[in-house]
């Protein structure tokens, strides 16, 4: 059991270390300017000594400041990061929870109606929605709302972060994938339990099939579902970037994208991503969050394997 905590911790350190190395890459880029200051080209010149100096500087800075230090306005960087991260959690955590509960409910429904016409609304819808890029779903939802707004029926704020509308809409966008993912997993877990001896025994004793399904099969399948939660969280985090950047919800993913924004723009003579420190802060919080999810799902998995050994 203790390994289930220590191993993820070790891997987290490795992963964070690698990310740190990439983020602290020196930005020694030689720009050549064309006529009138136009962009002529750029040559990247990697120097190991500079990379090493960056790493040393980062750690001495952290030790010296006893934290992430102050930003250009004199406010502590860590406050900014945690408040923004909290804003992200406000949409992320509900989306995950909705995904979990609604997903399991839908999975059970899909299982109950797996034969006959119910399949079209159940299994097929689940598979279909999972294949559609979530951005397509988001656009369709937004267009519907815009259409309804034009008709004067609803009034919902679609972009930004400060109203309750934004929070609710983003929870909706984010929870589509988890619901479908978990319901697919639930369906599969129930299907695996289907032929088990204990199910047959319970049925032959005259237990109503609903009771067998909800009390026995779901309970056994639950841990399998839990074991997959890690994958779901990773996907949803990826989606968080898309959703926050697209709807201008100013959470951690949005700010991380803007600090990394140099992938799409830069200034001659310098790169925009000067915010290395806060970047590292965001990476730290995100990876810690994944670490926690990892530990939880790892524990679930170890309980599952212990149970399977007993059988």
């Amino acid at each position: 059991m203790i390994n289930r905590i220590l191993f993820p911790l070790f891997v987290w350190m490795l992963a964070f270390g690698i990310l740190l190395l990439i983020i602290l890459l020196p930005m020694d880029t030689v720009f050549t300017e064309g006529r009138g200051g136009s962009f002529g080209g750029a040559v990247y010149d990697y120097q190991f000594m500079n990379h090493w100096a960056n790493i040393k500087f980062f750690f001495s800075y952290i030790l010296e400041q006893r934290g992430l230090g102050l930003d250009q306005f004199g406010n502590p960087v860590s406050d900014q990061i945690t408040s923004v991260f909290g804003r992200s959690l406000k949409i992320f955590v509900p989306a995950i929870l909705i995904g979990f509960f609604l997903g399991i409910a839908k999975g059970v429904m899909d299982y109950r109606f797996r034969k006959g016409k119910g399949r079209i609304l159940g299994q097929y819808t689940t598979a279909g929605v999972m294949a559609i890029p979530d951005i397509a779903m988001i656009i369709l939802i937004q267009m519907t709302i815009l259409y309804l707004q034009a008709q004067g029926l609803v009034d919902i704020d679609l972009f930004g972060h400060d109203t309750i509308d934004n929070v609710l809409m983003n929870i909706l966008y984010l929870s589509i994938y988890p619901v479908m993912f978990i319901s697919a997993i639930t369906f599969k877990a129930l299907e695996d339990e289907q032929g088990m001896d204990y199910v047959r025994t319970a049925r032959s004793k005259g237990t109503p099939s609903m009771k067998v399904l909800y009390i026995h099969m779901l309970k056994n399948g639950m841990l399998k579902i839990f074991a997959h939660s890690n994958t779901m969280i990773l996907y949803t985090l990826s989606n968080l970037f898309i959703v926050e950047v697209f709807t201008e919800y100013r959470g951690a993913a949005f700010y991380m994208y803007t600090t990394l924004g140099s992938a799409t723009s830069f200034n001659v003579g310098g790169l925009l991503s000067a915010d290395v420190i806060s970047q590292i802060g965001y990476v730290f919080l995100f990876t810690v969050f994944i670490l926690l999810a990892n530990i939880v799902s790892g524990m679930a998995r170890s309980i599952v394997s212990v149970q399977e050994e007993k059988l």
Partner: protein
Amino acid sequence: MNRTLWIGLIMTGMLLFILIFGPHLPRVDQTLEQNLLKKDSGVGLLVPPYAPSEEFLIGSDRKGVDLWSKVMIGARETFYILAVIVGLRLVLALLVSIGAFYLSGVRLLMNIWNAVFSFMPTIFIILILLAVPGVMFSDYRPFWVMAIIAVVEVGRLSLIFYESLQTQKRQSYMEAAISSGGRKWTLFKGYYWPALKREVLSSSATEAGRAMFLLAQLGVIGIYINQEFFSQLDRSYQSVETSNSWPVLLSNLRRDVYSAEWIPLVALFFMTFSIIAFHLLADGLRKRQAIKMRRNF
């Protein structure tokens, strides 16, 4: 009858048709002419984007280029990008998984690789890697972007291949093959490779779907395979996408949702269509294998 496979094949066939004959289809303007101004039927002048009409079958983009032509011509580039990503990923994953199957050192590396990458959401790591100046200003940037997208998911795919090799190893007839004196190479050629080949076939369709999914997501946040930097008024440089590939149509998404909703709708329709086609193809292939295996016994 395997209905999934048939529908998948028909849909992929349609995509293939566009790929081969796209530029020569009716109403496709191969020059991609920009209609920056257009006379209204009355007196006024119209500026692009034009809504779907007689002249523009499914509308035009913000430069007045006919979308139908753009989509048909851009298909080649889109699928070329997809093919490079999937091909690279498959080759690397095959090397890693076969290596891991025979050498414990590679297995350890594969496991560590997978564990480390399970801490990084895909988009997250792609963004971080693309911001490295060495990648950003490379003369071969398109290649690097495709390579990064391919490599980020190599670990996951090689684990799938590795597990299919392990399942093959557990088959009881493998014992017969070994005890009758099959050498390592013979075993690989006669037993492991055929099993792996089936997995590679269906996985390549799945991976194509996943890669397309990712390209759509990256398109929304403004990251494209082919981009060049152009100067802005404030002496900064903004990347400008220079290709006709489908994800680029999403570049103005937030504005288009309000004023030119046909542009994102067209782009998302074609991308979703191909993702579903690939998924159905993969599912159909898996089903076909399952039926075949059952018949064998």
